[in-house]
C-alpha cells in the first residue's frame, strides 16, 4: 500500500494549478484524510485498513484531479482553455503590447514633436518604457487574470522589470530636466529669453515629468505588489512542504 506522503505528492504533481491553490486543496484533503484514519482506528479498524479505506474514499483519481484543477482555474482561464494556448498567448501579448504603447509610447512620441529634447533620446525612452510596462503588465495578467500554474515564479522577474522601468523613467525625467536647463542657458548666453520661451520650455518639461512620474509611481507600486506576492508565495511553499512531508501532523499545522 502506498504511503499517504507519496499519494499526496502524486496528487500535488497532477494538480495543474498555482502553488497557492494547490496548498488550499491539499490542506483540506490531507486534514480530512488524517481525521478519517483517526476516526476509523478509534472505531476498531487496524491502521492499515483505516488508511486503505481513507484512500478509497478521499484521494482523487487522475480524472478527478483534472476536474479539481478545472474547477479552481479562474473564469478567464476556463474560458480560453478551449483554444490553443500558443494562439491565445499571441493575442494576449499583442493586446497588452498595444495598450502599453498607447499608454506610454504615444504620449512620449507626441512630446518628441514639440520638445527640444533630441528625438532619439525620447524614442529610446518611450520604447524602453513601453517594453518594460508591457512586460510588467504581462506578468500581472498571468498572475491575476490567468492565474498560471507557474504564476508564483513570475514575481522575481516582474520585480526586475519594475525596477528597470523605474530606472528608465527616472533617467528620462533627469534627461528632460537637464535639457530644459541647457536650453535656457543657451538662450541666456545668446542674449536672453522671453517669458513666452520660458513658459513653453517649462510646460514641455512639466508635461514630460508628469507623465514619467505617473509611470514611475505605477512601477513602484507594481514592484511592491510583486514583492508582497513573492513573500506570500514563500509562505505557501513552506505550507506545501509541510503538507507533503511524511511527518505531517494536522494538530501542529
Amino acid at each position, binding site marked *: 500500500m502506498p504511503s499517504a506522503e507519496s499519494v499526496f505528492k502524486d496528487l500535488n504533481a497532477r494538480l495543474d494549478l498555482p502553488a497557492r491553490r494547490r496548498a488550499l*486543496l491539499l*490542506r*483540506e*484533503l490531507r*486534514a*480530512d*484524510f488524517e*481525521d*478519517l484514519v483517526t*476516526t476509523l482506528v478509534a472505531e476498531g479498524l487496524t491502521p492499515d485498513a483505516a488508511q486503505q479505506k*481513507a*484512500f*478509497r*474514499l*478521499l*484521494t*482523487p*483519481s487522475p480524472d*478527478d*484531479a483534472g*476536474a*479539481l484543477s478545472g*474547477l*479552481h482555474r479562474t473564469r478567464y482561464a476556463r474560458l480560453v482553455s478551449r483554444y490553443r494556448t500558443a494562439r491565445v498567448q499571441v493575442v494576449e501579448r499583442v493586446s497588452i503590447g498595444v495598450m502599453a504603447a498607447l499608454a506610454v509610447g504615444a504620449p512620449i512620441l507626441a512630446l518628441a514633436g514639440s520638445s527640444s529634447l533630441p528625438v532619439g533620446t525620447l524614442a529610446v525612452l518611450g520604447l524602453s518604457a513601453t517594453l518594460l510596462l508591457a512586460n510588467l503588465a504581462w506578468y500581472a495578467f498571468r498572475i491575476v487574470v490567468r492565474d498560471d500554474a507557474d504564476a508564483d515564479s513570475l514575481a522575481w522577474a516582474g520585480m526586475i522589470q519594475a525596477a528597470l522601468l523605474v530606472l528608465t523613467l527616472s533617467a528620462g525625467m533627469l534627461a528632460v530636466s537637464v535639457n530644459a536647463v541647457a536650453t535656457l542657458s543657451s538662450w541666456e548666453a545668446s542674449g536672453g529669453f522671453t517669458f513666452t520661451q520660458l513658459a513653453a520650455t517649462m510646460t514641455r518639461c512639466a508635461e514630460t515629468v508628469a507623465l514619467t512620474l505617473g509611470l514611475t509611481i505605477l512601477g513602484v507600486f507594481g514592484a511592491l505588489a510583486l514583492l508582497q506576492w513573492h513573500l506570500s508565495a514563500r509562505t505557501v511553499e513552506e505550507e506545501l512542504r509541510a503538507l507533503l512531508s511524511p511527518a505531517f501532523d*494536522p*494538530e*501542529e*499545522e
Partner: protein
Amino acid sequence: MTTMTQRPNLSKHVNELLILARLRVGPAHGYEIALAVERDSNGAFSFQHGTLYPILHRLEQERLIRGSWEGEGRKRKTYELTPKGEAYLKGEAREVKTLFLNLIRVLEGPAHALG
C-alpha cells in the same frame, strides 16, 4: 419535469443530492460527509477515489453550500448548506423521487401495477 434520458449524468446528480442531504443535518467536514453517506445508505452509495471533492467544490462555487476554514493553527474546512442549497435540494429530491417511482413502476411491469 426532466426525464431520465435528459439527465446528463444521473449518478453525479445523485451524489450532489446525497451531499446536500447530509449537510441538511448540520455542518460537516468532507470526510464526515463521505462516511455518513456510505453508512446512512448501508453502503449502497459511496464516494470512490475522491469523487467527493470536485462535487463539493462545484456546489460551493454554485453557492449551494458554504465552505469555511476553522481552527487556530489546526485548519479544517467545514461545509454547511445555504438557503439556496436547501431550496435546490427540496425541489430536486421531489423530482428524483418521481423519477425513481416511475422507474420502479416500469421495472415491476404492468401486471404488478394493476395489482
